[in-house]
């Protein structure tokens, strides 16, 4: 079985400050990890993924995520948040040999001007 936990329902930051959205996962084999963002009344947009290799993954719109195998975490980060980053963020995991994704409950990010 595989699962994802996003411990924070909401994250509030001021524009220009660092942004972190937390994610921990559980999977039986090697994990493939993903971050998606969803704006109101839209589908999910892919941000970044970790498959193998460097633990620090860089993605779209200045976001990055750090894979930590010992802590089974994959936190999303952005050094300087923008108001336009306000959205709903989902972490997802799958086992390397299973094409089904499991999503976290989502974290609503609000960046205030």
């Amino acid at each position: 079985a595989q699962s994802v936990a996003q411990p924070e329902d909401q994250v509030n930051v001021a524009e220009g400050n660092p942004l972190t959205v937390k994610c921990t996962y559980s999977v039986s084999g090697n994990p493939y990890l993903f971050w998606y963002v969803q704006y109101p009344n839209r589908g999910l947009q892919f941000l970044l993924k970790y498959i193998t290799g460097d633990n620090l993954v860089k993605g779209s719109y200045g976001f990055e995520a750090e894979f930590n195998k010992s802590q089974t975490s994959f936190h999303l980060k952005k050094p300087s948040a923008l108001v336009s980053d306000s959205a709903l963020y989902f972490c997802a995991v799958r086992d390397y040999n299973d094409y089904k994704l499991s999503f976290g409950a989502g974290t609503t990010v609000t960046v205030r001007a």
Partner: protein
Amino acid sequence: EADIYQTPRYLVIGTGKKITLECSQTMGHDKMYWYQQDPGMELHLIHYSYGVNSTEKGDLSSESTVSRIRTEHFPLTLESARPSHTSQYLCASITGVEQFFGPGTRLTVL
């Protein structure tokens, strides 16, 4: 990036009606998925398909059904819509490793 199309984008319909939500992709992807999402909440996999004539139920039990007669087309059908079916329905397909999503259909059953 995959182009995934969903129609209609919004649907308001009365109880008992039969509805079909359309999902199509032009990239030739074998693997396609349907998710159900209540507003601002997590996604639940309700159906998936790994190719023509292959469909499976997902993690969340759903009264909907799907078919996969053509690679590019993965429609979802509700034979008799009820207010409990009110939700957003997202279709996705895989290219490479990551899933790409369509814009979704927001269904309201009165």
